[in-house]
């Protein structure tokens, strides 16, 4: 990697002050350091954000829980209350990489990580996402790529946590300039839908501070299918959360992962569930709505039946 300077920020303000045009925030480093080793990133300064007071706290609450951006994925996975209140988040966390990775990887870093497209990650390939001329995956090896996208890049969002948090209706607190903005997970990734170069909506210097998760009196679940039994990326993932009234859905969110550059949601699918009891036929219809308009490429058409199965299973899991 290229030589760089290193500072540890003790406050949000100082982190932002240090962040010059060629600097990067450093959290657990799983993503950033690997990109630096491959010469995909060459920041001149790393601003360590792990020591900022308050950003590594898990704060329980009646209305919502707040997780600091520097909370590690292992802590999320191992917290017994999170497991009880937000099973989708627990399950999504437990599937991230290996325990060694979860021990250092942070919530903020997980949400802000870059694409894992194997062309993007290749040191000698300059694709569209790296400001090159073309997307090689589109006519090449696109087994792991998107079914839905609003731009020529077909890489997918890979953060497990984003999928669960979207279903849970979480709000992301982002420091932007002098102000703290409140974004939905959809907001956090909206830019990646339209813009082939974007991995998320964060502009240079935007700092994720916290994530608020509303405590809803419902249930949630997450599931993924990978090629291996553990320590493997999701081919497709699905999270769902619902609030019930007398066994009927009052409100629900279903989200698909690894099929689009964003956690993929379809309002019509959520609406379909309202006022109904979840059973197999209903889950199948919800899957139809979510998967409508999918555009499979040469090697990723399998994601459609796989997603269908996952949607059905995840929804049925909500029924306990």
């Amino acid at each position, binding site marked *: *990697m290229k030589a760089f300077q290193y500072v540890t920020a003790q406050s949000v303000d100082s982190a932002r002050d240090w962040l010059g045009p060629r600097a990067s925030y450093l959290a657990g480093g799983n993503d950033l350091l690997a990109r630096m080793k491959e010469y995909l990133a060459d920041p001149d300064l790393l601003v360590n954000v792990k020591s900022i007071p308050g950003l590594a706290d898990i704060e329980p609450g009646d209305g919502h829980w707040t997780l600091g951006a520097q909370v590690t994925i292992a802590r999320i996975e191992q917290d017994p209350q999170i497991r009880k209140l937000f099973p989708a988040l627990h399950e999504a966390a437990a599937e991230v990489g290996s325990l060694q990775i979860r021990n250092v990887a942070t919530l903020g870093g997980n949400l802000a990580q870059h694409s894992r497209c194997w062309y993007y990650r290749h040191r000698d390939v300059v694709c569209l996402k790296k400001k090159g001329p073309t997307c090689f995956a589109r006519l090449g*090896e696109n087994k792991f790529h998107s079914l839905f996208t609003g731009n020529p890049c077909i890489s997918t969002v890979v953060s497990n946590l984003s999928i669960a948090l979207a279903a849970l209706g979480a709000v992301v607190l982002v420091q932007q300039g002098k102000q703290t903005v409140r974004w939905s997970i959809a907001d956090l990734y909206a830019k990646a839908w339209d813009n082939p170069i974007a991995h998320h909506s964060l502009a240079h210097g935007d700092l994720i501070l916290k994530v608020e998760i509303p405590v809803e009196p419902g249930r949630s679940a997450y599931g993924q299918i990978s*090629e*291996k039994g553990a320590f493997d990326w999701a081919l497709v993932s699905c999270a769902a959360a619902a609030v019930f009234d007398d066994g009927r859905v009052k409100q629900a969110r279903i989200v698909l992962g690894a099929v689009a550059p964003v956690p993929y949601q379809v309002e019509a699918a959520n609406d379909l569930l309202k006022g109904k009891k979840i059973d197999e036929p209903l889950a199948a219809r919800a899957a139809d709505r979510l998967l409508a308009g999918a555009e*499979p490429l040469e090697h990723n058409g399998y994601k459609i039946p796989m997603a269908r199965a996952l949607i059905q299973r995840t929804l049925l899991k909500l029924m306990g």
Partner: protein
Amino acid sequence: MPTWPKETKYIGRHVQRVDGPAKVTGSARYTSDVQPEGWLYGMILRSRWPAAKISDISLEKARQVPGIKAAILVREGERTIRYYGEELAAVAGTSKQACLDALRLIEVTASPLPFVVKETEALKDSSPPVWEKSPNLSKPKVVEKGDLAKAFGECAAVVEGFFTTPVLIHHPLETHGNTVSWTDEGITAWASTQGIFSVRDGLAGNLNVEQSKVRVISEFMGGGFGAKFGPGIEGALAARLSKAAKAPVKLMLTRFDQSLAVGNRPSSFQKIKLGASADGKLLAYELDAYGTAGIGSGGSTEGGGGGAEFPAPYIYTIPNIRVSHRGVTVNAGSARAFRAPGHPPASFGMESILDELAVKLNLDPVEIRLKNDPSPVRQREYQLGAERFGWKQKYHRPGSSPGPVKTGVGCAGASWGGGGGGTQAEAQINPDGSLEIRCGTQDLGTGTKTLIAVIAADLLQLKPDQIQVRIGDTRFPPSGGSGGSTTAASVSPAVFDACTQALEALQNQTGVADARGDNWKAACKKLGINPLIVGGKWQPGLSSSGTGGVQFAEVEVDADTGFVRVKKITCVQDCGMVVSRLTCESQVNGGIIMGLGYALYEQRVMDSTTGVVLNPNFETYKLPGLADVPQIDIILLDMPERGVIGIGEPVTIPTAAAIANAVANALGVRIGSLPITPDKVLAALGKTQAAHA
């Protein structure tokens, strides 16, 4: 003829690895741990082009990088590069970062050439030739026997199938590499190798140094699997860098390098037709196969070729056959021997089509094998294994498993040669009773040191940990490369001979009638000041070759998501006399896990447009992890009367075929392409949605 003792205390039993503690505490020094005084890092610059004419490489700027002590070209003058990752130049420096910086400053003037990296594209006439003078698709090599057309006409059932297997990358946990010191006195190389003498001879030959002036040491090494016999380009470069820099140079490949250029298992594309009589007797077989060994078959391939050919119709004898093999050259790193070269693809194709035939004839897969397998050993193994596995209870008609998660079972067989020879060893008995055994073999991680200790301990009635085993040094009596599953069968008889002769000499010299066990120390004391050194060599009668093995697999396949989980593998394997049971079983476990990787996870992915290997890391080159490893049940057919036979390779052969057959049994449709990934399962079930045009 010498014979192994009938009563044993250690031979054939579970004995802890003598070097286990050193390995788990980290005190064992692998090649990558060696740090001779003043050593430098070495690194290689590789081609970024899959094919190119290189007209000039300038090392000037690289040499200016602080810490860089040497920079050299792989070859002078213009040259043609034929694959992404081919070696161009190398540097040595005081830090990794200095080397990395230097590599980025080497200026290469290249004119890119057209290339082709996929077999299916390379075999077209229109594809750019990898070698200017010969077409990518070789002429078929054909073997014919009997009257095929007539025989197919007489068959009660004929099945046809198309099977493909991917290129696998050699990924031992310790990458390829050497630490080399080249001074006026000669060359000392610490090598991660499975053949210290072949590395010595390779270095001596390449660099024009007398063999007597080259010493190769490999005390501990982290796996080779067929890819680590010679010094490799990286070994020769380390030596040249050392000479230029006047310091030892450690050049261990990175995982990225490892994915490109150290050899691989060739792919195969097999069109097979098989016919049998109504009672399942195989009558006719036709194979039209091609596969790629990259730019060529390359690399030293002791223990089997590195080409794309494979034995067919594998373990079966069929009266009427036509076998055609073609090689396809592509712009990618070349093949090298890869654990049981040729056999795993052979087993996969043949055992798959055989199961299809069994289904068509309404025969049980074990039955059709018993009817056709010419090996009495495997006949016994199928019976033993089926009983232990519960085949009768578990086997059902293909596709008849209810529910979304389907269960299935399958089986497959394998054969291997093995056998030993050409090894010497010496025993040094010291007056204080300590004993050293020296042999110029090497331990691939299979447990050679333990094997030697077990034999010496039994013959001399000592404890294994009383014996100092010294191997992995070309100053010791010679032995061959550890390939073809020959190490145990080569080393054991030589150690037997050295120990028996040393005992006899000790008894003669000291007058102690039986110097073994309790008498040992007293006898040794009578030696006086000088130790007793006695040499021995491989003797016939203590080892043999030719093994058979069968495996049974039980799987669960989720028909909605395509996910395959292997629940159990039962392995019945013959390896003659078991010397060290623990390390022997460990070979079986490792072989099966590697076979599991072949079945479900591993494949090199090349990109047609850019010509690169897309998965040069363990994130996307998927290896089985702990969560994927099934229950493994091992039955070793103990046949001490046959002497020692190797086991390293046969145990990895039938695993993938057995798993593939189990998946087909579960689903009622066959996935004829390895690895069996969820996308292929869903496609085979007709669930996958086709791409928009």
